[in-house]
């Protein structure tokens, strides 16, 4: 089968899918094609969307490929959708950032870092499926531990967790450990 037909097939599948499709899933669906052929098709589609300036682009998000509309046309699309875009309060964003960077994280750790009670916000992030309960931490009191979800990556347009924006380095404080981030938080045992 010609390269351009494979490209069309890949494009039609990505177009119809209602979630991002991982490369493996795509290769599974298109079992009769080489992985290399599929890879080339994805690359060709990505390049086409950009060079021909189409209304959408192919992005890698939450570990999968998905067509998304170009951000510069958001205003027009909002007129079609007639829904208010999801809003995030600063506290929700702060909490989400802490969960994203420090996961798995307990409520106690979130509250230590934010300096305020965060139960209500964690609950609403759970309701919005942006975070999930991963399990319980094996320390006294067995507090629940939280992590981010696939929806979080989809919403924030992240390829994977490793592509979170890097945290700004903190200048070393005199007499403190250099890899500050790894220092366990001085929390009471039961959170």
């Amino acid at each position, binding site marked *: 089968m010609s390269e351009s037909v494979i490209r069309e097939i890949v494009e039609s599948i990505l177009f*119809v899918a209602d979630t991002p499709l991982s490369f493996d899933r795509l290769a599974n669906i298109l079992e009769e094609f080489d992985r290399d052929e599929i890879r080339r098709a994805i690359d060709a589609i990505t390049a086409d969307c950009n060079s021909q300036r189409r209304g959408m682009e192919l992005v890698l998000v939450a570990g999968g490929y998905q*067509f998304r509309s170009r951000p510069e046309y958001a205003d027009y699309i909002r007129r079609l959708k007639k829904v208010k*875009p*999801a809003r995030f309060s*600063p506290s929700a964003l702060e909490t989400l950032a802490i969960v994203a960077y420090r996961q798995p994280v307990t409520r106690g750790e979130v509250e230590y870092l934010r*300096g*305020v009670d965060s139960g209500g916000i964690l609950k609403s992030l759970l309701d919005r499926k942006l975070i999930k309960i991963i399990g319980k931490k094996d320390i006294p009191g067995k507090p629940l531990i939280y992590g981010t979800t696939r929806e979080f990556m989809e919403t924030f347009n992240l390829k994977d967790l490793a592509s979170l*924006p890097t945290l700004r380095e903190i200048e070393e404080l005199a007499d403190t450990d250099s890899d500050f981030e790894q220092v366990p938080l001085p929390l009471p045992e039961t959170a």
Partner: protein
Amino acid sequence: MTGSVQNQLFSEADAIACLVRTEAFEGPLDLLLHLIKKNEVDIYNIPIAAISRQYLEYLDVMQELNLDVAGEFLVMASTLIQIKSQMLLPQSIDPEVDDEKIEDPRAELVRRLLEYERYREASMELASRNLLDRDVFARSFIAPELDALPSAEALPELELFELVDAFRRILAKVPRENFHEVGSENISIADRISDILDFLQGKETVDFEELFAGSNTREYIVASFLAILELCRLRMIRILQYEIYGRLLIRNTVILAADPAVE
């Protein structure tokens, strides 16, 4: 800043005007960072006396405006006062102690502020990304060409939270008195019940004490005992004793369902 200047600044009309055009503080760390930036001071060398004074003035204004000052703000106020008093004390009276080893009383607070600021910056960066359904849109609906096809189900995608939240909603509808506490103990009893049933599988009777063989922690024994009582109540096991003070035997009375059909 003197008290009188402060009063002028926060005359009632001003305060209300300010209220309209300012953002909320997320918490004490946010307020402190605001003060540090406003005063253009070095975060590694916070003039703790001045900053604490301003911090407390803010709390006063909040209270004057009848805003609910959350407990966290008050905890931070006492932390600031404590740091201030520590800094007033002579550094070290013990000549044996190396001056360099004494940590600055502000160090812990500075660390928290820096860490907090880091996450806040990250959160703003997150918010500035091209968000789905705000800046970019995807086809997250079933396409018409798929809709016509019969659907085949794969594994369910469920989160733990959905499960416990569903249970919470059900219990909210049921009168409380019909329901005893559903706490962690109950759950580990469920674990023990399931283990005991597995253990009894294919055996006619087992020694009572064998059911406690897994561990000898207090929690485990209590959970095992409660599990046995619950199984008795459900008439899934029977406890037998053939002679006074003799061994206790557990008999499996569960009739295993041959056909997994619903009654």
